[in-house]
């Protein structure tokens, strides 16, 4: 028993160590095949799954592609990659939530997410982007829980040259937000970005606390455009769907920021999220510098997913 157990584990280990190409099967190889057989479909499914698309969505994509092929057969297998991309983009464009227009008098962006997803860095990037384009930006340091979270926001804000509204660590997040909204009014800010404490989506009291933050904004700033954005780490697996569901239930999300898309992770989980919930991706984080934030572009994303 022991012997043969070692056998497959060791084989796996050396296969993976030999070359990363064995993990990420090159799509070009799959698509250069002349035959579209069961193995072809299985390999395509694997490629999607290793990009964290998840089994149900991967199967849906493949079914969609099969249906598409039935309707208009391929003339050449070389067309295959484009057809697959088209199918995936079809899913990405299912978004059912319209973007929040930047409005007057004030646009408020509430940034939420699990611990370590990249909220604070994303906020710095957003603040930089808007202040570069001439908006007056104010940041509310409402992560009053994590040690040094307020300092982290402050350091970024100093670098970018925007103001921060903050209280002591441990104070009430809603109170910070209350002050920030009034400061935004008084200073004539165009955009208020609210940093919130990272919380696991399964913790009910913490989710309730964050609803309170949103209610404060709604009450104190009637007519403000509120955009609630969930930050998702691009390395997140199937748990990302649960994150999106629970944050959406609590807050009615307007969009997603896909952070840390600069490694080897593909961020395929957003396909599952869009498929299930229709929440669109608004921005992607593509690096560690403050400029590294791009608006989401479906074609480029799909190219990267399948590369």
């Amino acid at each position, binding site marked *: *028993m022991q012997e*043969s*157990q070692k*056998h*497959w*584990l060791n*084989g*796996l*280990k050396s*296969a*993976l*160590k030999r070359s*990363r190409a*064995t*993990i990420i099967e090159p799509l070009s190889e799959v698509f250069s095949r002349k035959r579209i057989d069961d193995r072809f479909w299985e390999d395509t499914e*694997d490629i999607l*799954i*290793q*990009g*964290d698309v*998840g*089994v149900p969505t991967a199967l849906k994509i493949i079914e969609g592609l099969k249906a598409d092929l039935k309707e208009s057969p391929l003339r050449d297998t070389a067309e295959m990659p484009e057809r697959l991309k088209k199918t995936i983009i079809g899913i990405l464009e299912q978004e059912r939530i319209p973007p929040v227009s930047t409005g007057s008098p004030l646009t408020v962006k509430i940034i939420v997410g*699990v*611990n*370590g*997803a*990249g909220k604070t860095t994303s906020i710095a990037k957003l603040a930089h982007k808007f202040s570069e384009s001439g908006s007056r930006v104010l940041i509310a340091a409402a992560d009053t*829980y*994590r*040690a*040094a*979270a307020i*300092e*982290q926001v*402050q*350091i*970024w804000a100093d670098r970018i040259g925007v103001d921060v509204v903050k209280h002591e*660590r441990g104070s009430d997040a809603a109170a910070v937000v209350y002050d920030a909204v009034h400061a935004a009014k008084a200073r004539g800010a165009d955009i208020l970005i609210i940093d919130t404490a990272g919380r*696991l*989506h*399964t*913790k009910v009291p913490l989710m309730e606390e964050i609803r309170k933050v949103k209610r404060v904004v709604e009450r104190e700033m009637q007519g403000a455009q509120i955009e609630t954005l969930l930050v998702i*780490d691009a*390395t*997140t*697996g*199937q*748990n*990302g769907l*649960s*994150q999106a569901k629970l944050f959406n239930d609590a807050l009615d999300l307007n969009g997603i920021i896909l952070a*840390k898309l*600069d*490694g*080897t*992770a*593909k961020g*395929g*989980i957003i396909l599952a999220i869009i498929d299930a919930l229709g929440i669109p991706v608004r921005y992607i984080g593509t690096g*560690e510098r403050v400029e590294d934030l791009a608006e989401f572009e479906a074609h480029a994303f799909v190219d990267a997913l399948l590369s």
Partner: protein
Amino acid sequence: MFETLTNRLSDVFRNLRGRGRLSDKDVESAMREIKLALLEADVNYKVVKDFIAGVKEKAVGEEILKSLTPGQQVVKLVSDELTSLMGGSPSTLGLAGKPPTIIMLVGLQGTGKTSLAAKLGLMYKSEGKKVLLTAADVYRPAAVQQLEALGKELDIDVFKGEKDEPALKVAERSYRTADKEGYSILIMDTAGRLHIDESMMDELKSIKTALKPHSVLFVADAMTGQDAVNQALQFDESVGFDGVVLTKLDGDARGGAALSVKAVTGKPVMFVGTGEKPRDLEVFYPDRMASRIIGMGDVLSLIEKAEAAVDKQDAEEMARKMLKDEFTLDDFLVQLDQVSQIGAIDEIIKMLPAQMAPKGLKDISVSESDLKKIKAIIQSMTKDERSLPKSINGNRRTRIARGSGTEVSDVNRLLKQFEQMKKMMKGLTGKKGKFRPIQGF
């Protein structure tokens, strides 16, 4: 943690066990279900494929399908393979012959290295050791302040560098300080960067070369997906690590990344982070976790928790009563108190083997107010009634309900549950009063 996986696997297993004979097709469909369950739990797909192929090959090789109990044999096979995938007994961090013992934490941004540094520090501090934390993440804004704040909260010393001092210098100086000032444990927080960032990896390597830490721990977020394996391999190849810490397991993450990292790098998962509080760090027991995933429960952990809450002599007396069928409502009352000290009922039930926890019991949840009600009802009974519940007729039930401020239906329910419980106890004890071996294992 791992609950969805557990539920899905136990469905597959139940299906397999129920069959007298298995066709190739039955095995095929069971394997597909297991494959999907593992993929849904974020186990790396390459690991899953090889796992399934390994099980299939053996199922055929050992001619299991021709045996008298093929279903159980396949279940056993899958269980064994899963256990070996997770690794056997727990691995612990050793201490250096000559202090300080250096522990270096590496991993991507946002996985929880800084929090872990504090948690590990607290763990050693509560063992009476003198701990120094080094803030060698000189890049992330406020990373040093974060560690400082945590150190202050926990009363653990933190070493930080001068402004713009390179991480390697900070690390080296912290070592000299630890050595000179008699610290026995030095925990080094490092900068989180992407595994494809070469200059970052070089920095980690140079720290590792200079300080020769006794353990390098790779910190991985339990929510990571398929890419976990890439990250781990890259860190292992360029820096090298001895063990894995899985953080943020207190959400609903399925932790398949952990299984994969172990399978691919061969490095054990040593600790798991189970909450935001500094105390929320647990030693990882692969064998227990495997048994929990497979639906065999985690009886060992349950026993440990029980031992911490219950006096041993009381427990033995209680067990004797259960075996001899002398268990009374008074004993039940005592036990309820003890159980509520061990933990929430639904948590305890999750630790029981699937076969021991009847289906209906899985959804049970006893709240504080339920417990109060039960207590009130029992306390409204006479002594005789408590030791002989059968004597409680309709009139007595009405009286008890009135006395305890409950409804007769509450009293009825309690008495019924008590009877069921006694039945379950009888089921657990065999002829010699020992636990009957669980079928199939």
